[in-house]
């Protein structure tokens, strides 16, 4: 029988893959993809906890939808920032975009 631990291990693996993509990628858009993967794994955790621990009240699913809303807003603004940066520097490599690095 599939229990909560199965979903937790799956979400943990997904989070770690997303972390690897977010930390170790050179392209800014690839880093964004890793962040999206991490947000998705957290959503999977929320829905799984709601399903297995407290299925009567669907607060976990509502929270997952809030996370999806924030992720959509983050992606739209983040891609706009990357486009503006590309227009200015003709580059999306994070190794060479270090204006704010001290």
């Amino acid at each position: 029988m599939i229990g909560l631990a199965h979903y937790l291990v799956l979400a943990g693996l997904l989070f770690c893959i997303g972390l690897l993509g977010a930390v170790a990628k050179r392209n800014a858009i690839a880093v964004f993809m890793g962040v999206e993967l991490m947000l998705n794994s957290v959503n999977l955790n929320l829905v799984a906890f709601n399903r297995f621990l407290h299925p009567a009240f669907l607060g976990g699913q509502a929270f997952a939808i809030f996370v999806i809303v924030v992720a959509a807003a983050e992606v739209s603004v983040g891609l706009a920032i990357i486009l503006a940066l590309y227009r200015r520097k003709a580059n999306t490599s994070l190794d060479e975009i270090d204006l704010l690095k001290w």
Partner: protein
Amino acid sequence: MLGVIFFYVFAAAVVIGALAMVFTKNLVHAALFMAGTFLMIAFLYILMGADYVGAVQILVYVGAISILFVFGIMLTKRDRIEDSNRFNRYGPAATVVAGLLFASIVLTAVGTTFANAPPPTGDSTIQTIAGIFLSDYVLAFEFAGILLLAALVGAIVIGKGQLSRKPRVAVQGSSGGDTPGGGGPSKGGER
């Protein structure tokens, strides 16, 4: 029994898609694998009885965010696209950190005994979630709307770029200037 098979099939698809997304060298292929991963996660939601979250996942992630990523990739292409998704110099260290984090998560999740609720009845969750949004979480719901509006305006303002350019101002300043009729069309042409 069928649920167990479905879980393992979808979980394997999710993990394979995520690994392919991170380790492929072509950024467009990475976006495609990301869309497939999101679709499989939506199936997992539906398998857990969360049909509305699964539908929102398909609509927002697979339908909108993946396409937005493809737009971003196409508009910022620089070198050859086959070589656009490289690791930086922190690749080995990040692999070690992610592996250690995954090991700790597995140890914690396997070593804990959780409650196991009975499977969901199969009713639609839309009415319950709508009731939660408009009663318990109504303030957060309104703030989510404000956040979406702010993100919409912010994305337009940031992505719009500069409106008036310097050569245009120079042409306008050299041609017009003495008659007010000459200033009218040039001002109308300026967006």
